[in-house]
């Protein structure tokens, strides 16, 4: 019952009362749930081939929602520009004909320009827009652009550093594996993959490398050749017949070992080269970092906390920690920006990152972690709850840092 009510009501503020909830559940779910004192001011925008019509040309400072409808026949964009007509305060792009999209932002008092750009060319159809002082406390955002630029620089450096460590250690790992020193290879497996797991969303952003390097056996299409880390994992931790779907496991031959180890190493080299290119550095922005942090925790939630990532080596907790490390670095870089735009979110993220770290510390063993299958059901559930507690605020990071 509660689920169906929640799913139908559209929450825009934390000021809802139970009465308001009950009412909205029965009304059209396109209507906002309640007009609380913190509700955003709604402004409609109609963008056509030759006009950009706004329902109002001024609004009180605070939360504003521009509901932009493309009433023309070309793809359009909508901008809120600063008084100088150059600096983009916020924007919304790629609105197809007939489509509506909301631009939600927090605006300080001042003079602005609005602009629709049908066909995505030219200066757009501009008009003056005034934000009056409502008395609402809007945090200053002066250094935001600088802070983001520095976060991007630091994050790119981190990715380069991790891919370099990954390359170095993968060389050691594959050397041991090809030489038949399985004990050494097994001991290097998890500590090498840590560098991969810390920057996994980056590797995934190169669509061709991830399937070559990190596919699990279950991810294969029938007849597809399996390559990458988990093939070698299975060979190093050879499964029993029962664990192998009833079929006796056939170890890779020496030639196969060399072939797949070489391929893993050359793919790792490709990853290194790409993360060190200027193209990569230019593609990183605040939303890339923010979404990457969230993506890392999604990886934990769907793969590591359930023990599905490392089904032969059971080193899932190493990956878990590495994903959290990567997410934390991404967040720390953006922390100043978050502090300015949403200090409560920053406090919650600080708290939850600490909490998950403390939780994971319980399972440390030597330089790494205990094997996943030694965890009890209750421990797995506790870890999953910790991941949820961190993931929820982390999913709000991007919206808090994007201009």
């Amino acid at each position: 019952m509660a689920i169906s009510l929640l799913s139908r009501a559209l929450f825009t503020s934390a000021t809802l009362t139970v009465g308001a909830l009950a009412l909205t559940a029965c009304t059209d779910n396109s209507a906002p749930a309640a007009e609380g004192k913190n509700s955003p001011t709604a402004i409609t925008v109609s963008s056509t081939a030759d006009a950009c019509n706004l329902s109002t040309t001024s609004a009180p400072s605070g939360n504003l929602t521009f509901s932009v409808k493309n009433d023309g026949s070309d793809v359009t964009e909508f901008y809120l520009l600063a008084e100088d007509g150059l600096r983009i305060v916020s924007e919304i792009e790629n609105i197809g004909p007939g489509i509506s999209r909301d631009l939600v932002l927090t605006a300080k008092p001042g003079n602005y320009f609005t602009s629709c750009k049908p066909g995505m060319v030219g200066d757009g159809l501009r008009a003056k827009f005034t934000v009056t002082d409502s008395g609402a406390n809007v945090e200053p955002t002066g250094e935001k652009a600088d802070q983001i630029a520095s976060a991007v620089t630091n994050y790119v450096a981190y990715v380069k550093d991790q891919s370099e460590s990954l390359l170095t250690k993968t060389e050691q790992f594959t050397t041991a594996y090809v030489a038949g020193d399985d004990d050494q290879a097994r001991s290097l497996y998890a500590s090498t993959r840590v560098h991969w797991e810390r920057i996994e969303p980056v590797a995934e952003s190169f669509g061709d490398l991830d399937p070559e390097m990190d596919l699990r056996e279950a991810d294969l299409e029938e007849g597809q050749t399996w390559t990458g880390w988990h093939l070698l994992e299975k060979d190093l931790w050879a499964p029993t017949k029962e664990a192998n779907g009833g079929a006796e496991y056939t170890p890779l031959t020496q030639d196969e070992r060399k072939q797949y180890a070489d391929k893993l190493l050359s793919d790792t080299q490709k990853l290194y080269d790409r993360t060190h290119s200027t193209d990569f550095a230019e593609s990183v922005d605040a939303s890339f970092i923010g979404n990457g942090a969230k993506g890392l925790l999604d990886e934990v939630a769907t793969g590591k906390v359930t023990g599905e990532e490392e089904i032969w080596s059971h080193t899932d907790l190493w990956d878990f920690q590495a994903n959290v490390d990567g997410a934390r670095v991404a967040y720390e870089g953006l922390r100043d920006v978050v502090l300015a735009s949403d200090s409560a979110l920053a406090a919650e993220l600080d708290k939850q990152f600490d909490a998950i770290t403390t939780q994971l510390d319980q399972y440390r063993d030597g330089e790494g972690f205990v094997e996943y299958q030694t965890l009890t059901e209750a421990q797995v559930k506790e870890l999953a709850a910790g991941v949820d507690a961190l993931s929820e605020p982390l999913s709000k990071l991007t919206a808090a840092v994007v201009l």
Partner: protein
Amino acid sequence: MSGSSPTDRLIPDDTPAPSAAHADAEPGSDGAAHQVRVGRRGFLTGAGVALGAALAGAAGYGVARATDGSHSSTPASRSHAFEGPHQAGISTSVQEHLHFVALDVTTTDRDELISLLTQWTAAARSMMAGGSAGQYGPMDGPYDAPPQDTGEAYDLDAANLTITFGFGPTLFETADGTDRFGLSAQRPEALKDLPHFPGDTLLPERTGGDIAIQACADDPQVAVHAIRNLVRIAFGKATVRWSQLGYGKTSMTTRDAKTPRNLFGFKDGTANILADDAAALNEHVWVSGTDTGANDGWLAGGSYLIARRIRMTIETWDRSAMREQENVIGRTKQTGAPLSGGDEFTEPDFTLAGREGKPLIDVYSHVAMAHPSNNAGARLLRRGYNYTDGSDDLGRLDAGLFFIAYVRDPWRQYVPMQNAMAKNDLLSEYIRHTGSGIWAVPAGITSWTDGAFIGQELFRA
């Protein structure tokens, strides 16, 4: 979940009878079938079968109870005809609720299997007309015997119930190659286990089955009643392998229906094959008996049923930005319009580009991956339902889509599409296939004669 008050059904005597006739466009029933539509009577009485003298009294009692007006005299207007060239429940206007069961046949006696199918068929025909699952009504029969019909649908009408039967590969030949019923020579070439698709995490206890029965109705209690009673009839001859409840249909086969939403919150099934599109049904759904492979002559007028239990990783989806959600699906969440513009029913334009020349609809979005233009023109008749089986050990919602599709050739229409989607569809990140099955769904029974049963062409082939 639905708009109607649950209290309607607790006080049947005060509830006005539904007035709108929903009789659909399927071939009309004959006189005998019409008679059993009144109340939940035993089906032998209504069908006017000549009974032995010893039974005549009991039969008369059943009629008297059913027509006394105090319980279930509501005319069964919300019902679908059992008879027709195709089984009901495929192109039939999609009902709100599902109970789907997969059974393994335990008897190894061909005659006993035929007898089971015959009993099932008669019970299904009666229940679809709002009648009893047994020869006696739910409240009738010998006082010292358990009632033949379990009774929980006694005060309910047929609620548009349809019951659809399908035969799995293992009915023809078990995994170890045993031909229990002398059917292996009749197994259509296309009726074999689906391949492993990338990312499949199928649970054996939710996969396969010798026989599938799909019960759909606008009242969940009617659908569950149907499966419960059919399973009961099968005790000793077949056991339940798994079953699945579904609610909130996620597709439609009639044009006037409002496109429903799946548990991702998006409209689902917008581009489905509709019941009145005979050409598309013939091209994509009904087996013609000559064109898809060996041994399917007996399946003419039937179809192949593919079911997939697709679990959604609800929690990670709910944390994804609206931008990500719409990009993954390729449609707007609110109206269902493709991101290239227009409204829900506007054809997507996969070439229309936005900033930096990138197409507005991501090439790996769900709408792009599933579109016929990217699948050699292949289309499916979808008939899926949302499901929620409580929560798992980690406290996460065990919920998703129970996908059901009917196709003429699974290996041309479904397998290539699913392979491509499992590998590349952006949606794959948020779903996991945990159950699967394929069944050959025989044609319908065009005109009723006693002893007729679904699949009789197979056993006479």
